């Protein structure tokens, strides 16, 4: 099914962010694991795999719309040196993703591409869940202090 070019471009931009998120979350997860922070590793690893599955859905949708999925383009990875920086880097990425998804959903609605809209809505839901989790972690660090937080994540 042939789609208009702006929709394919939009889906490719969302795909770029999902691929960036897959890599950023994966590296952060394995850094946590390396430091013995297994609870953070588990959650971040799952977020990475989820981002990869969402990238897969986007790739299939772009191919269905007879476009070419761009797996070459990757954004800047925001890799922190410690847990606080890593969480804040992830918040920055998911915030940018959320802004783009909200705009994208509006575009799909106006282009009457309801299936792409549903796909983006699904991604938005998971993005917001992850954003909520990240913000909770940052507020926990604020409340109990970095040392206590890290001990709880071992």
């Amino acid at each position, binding site marked *: 099914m042939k789609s208009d070019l702006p929709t394919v471009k939009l889906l490719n*931009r969302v795909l770029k*962010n999902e691929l960036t998120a897959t890599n950023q979350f994966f590296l952060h997860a394995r850094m946590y694991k390396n430091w013995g922070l297994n609870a953070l590793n588990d959650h971040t690893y799952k977020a990475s795999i989820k981002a990869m599955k969402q990238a897969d859905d986007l790739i299939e949708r772009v191919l269905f719309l007879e476009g070419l999925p761009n797996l070459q383009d990757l*954004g800047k990875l925001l890799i922190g*040196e410690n847990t606080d920086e890593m969480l804040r*880097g992830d918040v*920055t990425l998911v915030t*940018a993703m959320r802004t*783009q998804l909200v705009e994208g959903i509006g575009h799909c609605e106006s282009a009457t591409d309801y299936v792409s809209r549903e796909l983006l809505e699904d991604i938005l839901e998971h993005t917001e869940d992850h954003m909520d989790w990240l913000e909770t972690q940052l507020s926990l660090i604020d409340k109990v202090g970095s040392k206590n937080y890290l001990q709880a994540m071992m």
Partner: protein
Amino acid sequence: MYICICEQVTDREIKAAINEGASSLRDLRNELGIAKECGQCGHCAKAMLKEHADHNRSERPPLPKQAPSCGSTDLFPLFGHAILASD
């Protein structure tokens, strides 16, 4: 945080280089080896240079507004903007 992943260069190292006199991306490239391979860090490094230049300008009296100092500036909104701008 890491600005250049290829060469493992952090924002603190870049700030130190800027404070020691690096004023262009070329200086930073020669000194720290950043923006040589994939080039993804160039945007962030330039933003840090610009921020430092703006800060210096704001230090000259008399100016009505005080620009945020380099030390207290939150870098993450800067990068968030960079992510969206590069689309």
